[in-house]
């Protein structure tokens, strides 16, 4: 396969026909360049949107109470629905397919939180232990709220990294220390971080404690859970939930205003479908561009063969076999497409790299890169396309009769 002489022969031909080679290579380089740019920007858009999504769990379902818009069972329109701890318990027990679940009780306004002489205003979120997964939070130190905290109404808190930074400027170790939340001391049990910047600016406390401390009774304001089910199954789950809530709170199941449900799983899947659509579209355009490149190379190689008819005739007269002529043309074509394609590849990746840096803070675009496997596929595609582009002209060249070629003045 590897014949140094053959390559020297090809190199010397290429070297002596620089302009021709340059023109041939350009179309391929351009094709690959476009493919990489297209794929990269598609990927960038996808990365961006996915990052926005992944700040929280992508498989969560959120329930909000609303206000009835239909009269039902003797109750009038406009009644506010109130969630209670019973809703939490019922959902937790009755509905199957729940992975992590949490309710939330809203404390009024932002809380002033202090540690010694440091003060700050941060969101106070009361929740169940499952909320860590719903928010995609991860622990830096210590632990999150746990079930015993809930059961024993413990005054404990897990704080965001930004909160820890703001209040522990003196370098104290936060875990174990007491914070004052609206004047009430809470012991810090952990420090967490979160992919979303907004979410590290808050503290979590047990929902049961919050209800007690802030006079909430058994009221909850949100119910959220994650599920391992598919989109279709999650839709069924929601139907079931609606029925359950309608029965317990006496509202019409068809009342769209009484209970609001937000299914991030569905939205996420829709985006995923959209992106696989975009990816297919990008590939079609990219391959179309490459085909144009292949046709270009093939076309130029045809002209090359025509131009070299006499040379091929001479070579045949002095003993070149058709096979050696085919490989001469074919390998030249493959070499040109591969090198040109590689240049296109490098330039495309380089440009994406620059764009990636320049657009760091643009929302919904992140790391516009064509990944390594794409580069490999593109390279294979190039070699194949070079072979295709060279084959027809090479075959034509091999069929040239030396006598006719020599007559060609």
């Amino acid at each position, binding site marked *: 396969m590897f014949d140094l002489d053959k390559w020297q022969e090809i190199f010397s031909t290429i070297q002596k026909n620089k302009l021709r080679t340059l023109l041939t290579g350009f179309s391929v380089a351009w094709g690959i360049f476009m493919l990489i740019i297209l794929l990269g920007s598609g990927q960038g858009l996808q990365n961006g949107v996915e990052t926005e999504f992944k700040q929280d769990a992508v498989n969560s379902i959120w329930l909000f109470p609303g206000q009835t818009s239909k009269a039902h069972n003797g109750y009038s329109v406009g009644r506010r629905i109130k969630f209670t701890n019973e809703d939490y318990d019922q959902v937790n027990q009755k509905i199957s397919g729940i992975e992590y679940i949490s309710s939330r009780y809203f404390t009024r306004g932002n809380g002033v939180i202090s540690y010694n002489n440091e003060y700050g205003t941060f969101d106070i979120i009361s929740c169940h232990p499952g909320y860590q997964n719903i928010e995609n939070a991860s622990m830096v130190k210590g632990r999150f709220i746990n079930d015993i905290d809930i059961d024993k109404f413990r005054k404990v808190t897990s704080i965001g990294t930004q909160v820890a930074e703001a209040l522990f400027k003196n370098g104290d170790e936060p875990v174990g220390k007491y914070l004052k939340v609206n004047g009430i001391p809470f012991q810090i049990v952990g420090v967490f971080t979160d992919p979303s910047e907004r979410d590290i600016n808050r503290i979590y406390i047990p929902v049961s404690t919050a209800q007690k401390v802030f006079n909430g009774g058994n009221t909850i304001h949100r119910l959220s859970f994650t599920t391992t089910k598919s989109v279709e199954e999650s839709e069924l789950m929601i139907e079931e939930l609606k029925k359950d809530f309608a029965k317990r709170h006496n509202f019409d199941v068809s009342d769209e205003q009484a209970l609001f449900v937000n299914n991030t799983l569905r939205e996420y899947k829709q985006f995923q479908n959209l992106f696989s659509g975009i990816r297919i579209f990008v590939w079609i355009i990219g391959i179309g561009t490459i085909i144009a490149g292949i046709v270009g190379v093939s076309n130029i190689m045809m002209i090359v063969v025509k131009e070299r008819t006499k040379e091929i005739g*001479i070579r*045949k007269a*002095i*003993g070149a*076999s058709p096979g050696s002529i085919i490989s001469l043309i074919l390998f030249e074509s493959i070499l040109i497409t591969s090198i040109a394609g590689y240049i296109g590849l490098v330039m495309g990746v380089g440009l994406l790299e620059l764009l990636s840096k320049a657009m760091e803070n643009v929302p919904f675009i992140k790391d516009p890169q064509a990944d390594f496997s794409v580069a490999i596929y593109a390279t294979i595609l190039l070699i194949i396309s070079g072979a295709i582009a060279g084959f027809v002209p090479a075959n034509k060249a091999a069929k040239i009769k030396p*006598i006719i070629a020599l007559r060609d*003045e």
Partner: protein
Amino acid sequence: MIRIESLHKSYVTGLNKLHVLKGFDLNIEEGELVSIMGSSGSGKSTLLNIIGILDNYDEGKYYLDNMLISSMSEKKAALLRNKYIGFVFQSFNLISFKNALENVALPLYYQNVGRKKRNMMAMEFLDKMELREWAHHLPNELSGGQKQRIAIARALITKPRVILADEPTGALDSATSIEVMKIFKEINDQGVTVLIVTHEKDISEMTNKIIRLKDGLIESIETRNGKPITHSKVEAYV
């Protein structure tokens, strides 16, 4: 070396059929220096192309070194050309983007001779043609006589048994022509069979045997001293 029996060849162009070679016998022994003469259209180039396995024939038989050359694959034809035959053309047919040395060495490339060795041999042959200092020049930097000597060196490098020259002096002035013919004679002296197609009387007179073609048939074959050996009586056929 070359034996031809009732050879026929015609070209079909569209609806017209042109009968170029009309069936003749020819025998050329090894080591002969032969010229083929005839007016244009007499079929002399066609004959040379058939002998050179550049073209095929329709009827009859052609033996090269007692080997029947009939329709064969391009690959085999290429192999035989490379092994037995050296070509010299009127228009030199050098590859324009290769220098003199590379042109001369090219046939050896198709014999899978290593680069170093073939360049060495090419230099040797260029030296014989007194062209050593022109080895790295491209063909368009050389004179007609130099180009033809390069072409001859290229034809000789594979040490062929037969040299076929199609109007080798057609593009050269008379002084250079004589020089080139001298080279052919020297080659012939080493035992190589040389066939030269020409329409120049001076050139043919420098060979040992003159074959005259007319309308696809052999009109006469004469030896160097001018005595006709055979006279074809079949002209009337036409």
